């Protein structure tokens, strides 16, 4: 019996009293590499933010390995959607990666040599060591995404949430990122990725959740990634020419 890494019960989330997620129940088993798919505005980012306590749901609850998120922060790493931060902020690549260590430091304590070393290792892993002192606005889209990934790696978590990590990156970076994600899964971590390119779902992921305000389906890619669920999620009559 595999353990349940993330459990969501009856979750309803609203902006200005207009629900964008309705009564979501979701169990994510430990050790899967899972895609969350759904059209724009389906609530994918909202779901992740609610799991991570960034948004307060109006109903329902979330648990990470059986306990509330607040008690399990150290187990979770998060890569927000790239557009959610100000890339003109005066800071360097290394500094952004160091931010990943802030969680384990807690309030007031400052990062030291140990944290810097961890950040440099993470930069190396994503192939960005040469850019460590580069101001972040002077990195390409793919490089910025690698920096975000390095920042998540430095958190040394058990569960990774990534919101559209392939948005605006070149093919090489996409392959580099997916390889690192597959490595994480091999090491027993759980990885949850908001993903847009339906063509690559079977190739990259072993688990999938269809979401559009409500949860449409969740399970192994080989069992549930089919035209029926795609049609239910995307509305239009979906015929994918995806070879499995």
């Amino acid at each position: 019996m595999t353990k349940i890494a993330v459990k969501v019960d009856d979750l309803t989330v609203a902006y200005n009293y207009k629900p964008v997620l309705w009564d979501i129940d979701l169990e994510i088993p430990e050790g899967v590499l899972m895609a969350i798919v759904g059209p724009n505005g389906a609530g994918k980012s909202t779901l992740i933010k609610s799991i991570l306590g960034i948004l307060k749901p109006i109903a329902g609850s979330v648990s990470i390995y059986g306990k509330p998120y607040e008690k399990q922060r150290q187990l979770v790493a998060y890569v927000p959607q790239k557009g959610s931060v100000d890339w003109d902020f005066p800071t360097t690549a290394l500094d952004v990666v160091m931010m990943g260590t802030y969680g384990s430091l807690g309030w007031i304590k400052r990062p030291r040599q140990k944290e810097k070393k961890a950040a440099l290792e993470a930069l190396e892993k994503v192939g960005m060591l040469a850019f460590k002192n580069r101001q972040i606005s002077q990195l390409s889209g793919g490089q910025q995404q690698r920096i975000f990934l390095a920042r998540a790696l430095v958190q040394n978590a058990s569960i990774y949430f990534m919101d559209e990590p392939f948005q605006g990156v070149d093919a090489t970076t996409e392959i580099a990122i997916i390889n690192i994600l597959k490595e994480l899964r091999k090491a027993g971590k759980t990885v949850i990725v908001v993903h847009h390119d339906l063509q690559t779902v079977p190739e990259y992921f072993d688990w999938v959740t269809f979401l559009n305000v409500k949860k449409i389906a969740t399970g192994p890619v080989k069992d549930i990634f089919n035209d029926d669920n795609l049609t239910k999620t995307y509305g239009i009559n979906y015929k994918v020419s995806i070879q499995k």
Partner: protein
Amino acid sequence: MNSAQIEIQLIASLVAIACAIPGTFLVLRKMAMISDAISHSILPGIVIGFFITQDLNSPILILFAAFTGIITVVLVEYIQKTGLVKEDTAIGLVFPALFSIGVILIAKNANDVHLDVDAVLLGELAFAPFDRLLISGIDVGPKALWIIGVILLITISLLFAFFKELKISTFDAGLAASLGFSPAIIHYGLMSVASVTTVGAFDAVGAILVVALMITPAATAYLLTTDLKKMLALAITFGVLSAISGYWFAHWLDASIAGSITTMLGLLFLIVYLFAPSKGVIAVMYREKQQRIEVSLLTFLLHLKNHNELEERHVNHLREHINWQKVRAKTVLELALKNNMIMVDNNIVSLTEKGDTFTSKAIDYIITNEDAQIEDMKDDFFLFRG
């Protein structure tokens, strides 16, 4: 310099430092307008606090006014959350309302004290040294100096303690929240500091200068650096520099000190805005011109690479073939020659080995968008500097 002059400059400098610190974060959070709102809407807080304490310099009055500042922020956010109006509109709704309540309260009740709207907006730094703080009968200096000194001390301690938290929640509020650094706590902490600083400074320098000292030095520093700590240091430097030069400018012209300091702030900003090395207007214009030349150069090199026929590579033909209007052919030819990328033999232009390699690499870069290809070309060419 007499002691009053020194005291005025000291007060102005401490106010500048105390404003630059929260100001830097307000600018980075794109919240410059909120400092304007706070500086105006604390007025009713000051008036009500004055009715209660009957003392313009009482710490209770400062807390009262700072609390009105927080109420402003909460109201703005509340109105914004209804989704009916944008943030700047919400600010525009809240602070005139609160400010006018303050003005009415003064007009109705405080005619007999030195609370008047002019003093509130412009302050009077020149009189600050006359209002002394006496401790058991001993004169320990101007009250304003003590008030702003204490506020500055608190601000600096908070900055040192929570630098990392301020940085992460300003850059990436989502990550900060997920790591357990509540962006709301940090946000209201920053707003409280901004409010307390505004109240503490404004009796001495007035509301307009407080806003100018919060926003302008930080905005100037932002144009010059890509490092948050340096930005803070520069903002403080610009603030103090404007405070002191503004004082002497006013002295020389026999004009308002607050007005002169504001003028200096504007002047410094203008100079940096024009001449900043990479973000300044002139640097940007220069870079764009360089890029136009480089695009022409690349077009030119590509043409040479694609054509072996002699007539296609004749100097005269090149003039017609490539769009030279924007950049003069001579500049491009010279640039290519200077970099040893071409050679000219009997008016026939051909690529050198270096030019050939460079062109192949550049094509590779443009096609694959692979960053590794371009790293070693960056020093030679602006074009690839992003």
